[in-house]
């Protein structure tokens, strides 16, 4: 037990820094968004069935569960976009010495987007479907 705790401290603790967590989150949100494209394209293809088919498809998403999913989705997009802009700034504008400051700015921008999205999605999540 003690030995295992020591092993985790040696292997995992060095990973716990803001840059590494941002790298990991960028990867996780990126893969999640790539996977999401498939069901997203499938639901858009309901349009081939005409107005009724598309509206029936869209009506299926008007539930609190999908509101939660969309909120998470926008959170993933916000993080991936803000952190991506930070990566572009570091790479293109030679801002590597300031990458920590840029990371906090990116997180601030991401938090602002998520907060703005919350004003839209939290009422949808809490409201009864009607």
């Amino acid at each position, binding site marked *: 037990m003690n030995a295992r705790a020591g092993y985790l401290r040696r292997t995992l603790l060095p990973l716990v820094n803001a840059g590494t967590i941002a*790298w990991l989150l960028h*990867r996780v949100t*990126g*893969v999640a*968004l*790539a996977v999401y*494209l*498939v069901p997203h*394209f499938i639901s*858009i*293809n*309901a*349009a*081939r*069935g*005409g*107005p009724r*088919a*598309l*509206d029936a498809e*869209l009506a299926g998403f008007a539930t609190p569960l999908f509101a939660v999913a*969309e909120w998470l989705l*926008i959170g993933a*997009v916000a993080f991936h*976009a803000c952190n*991506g*802009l930070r*990566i*572009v700034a*570091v*790479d*293109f504008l*030679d801002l*590597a010495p300031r*990458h920590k400051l840029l990371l906090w700015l990116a997180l601030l921008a991401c938090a602002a987007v998520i907060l703005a*999205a919350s004003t*839209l999605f939290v009422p*949808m999540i809490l409201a009864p479907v009607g």
Partner: protein
Amino acid sequence: MSAPAGFVSSGARGGLWGWLGQRVSGLFLVYALAVHLWAVHVVSSGRLSWETIIARLQDGPAWTVYYALFVPAVLYHAANGLWGIFLDYHPSPGLRRGGLIALWVASLALLAYGYVGLRPLLAGVA
């Protein structure tokens, strides 16, 4: 031109063009997704339907140009990103080639599928 030494983000693993392409497509996607999410979740909030979608898309050729670029940009960015992650696991040459072919086939199939799905909305008729 190459990724700055000492701070090479993972997109650099796929080579210069993959690195540059991921950044250029990423910058475009920040704009395109802002427009997409604003149009779908703010402008059409609570009343997203065939009616409101085609009303928006019939508004002018700009939306057709927008989607013509948005779909390949998002698929390129996704495939290129997954490719970079795949290379991080040091696949064998055979696996590498298989992965590349799989990503190309999936991306081109989704590109065609995405355009086919959008066509009725851009044309205004199913």
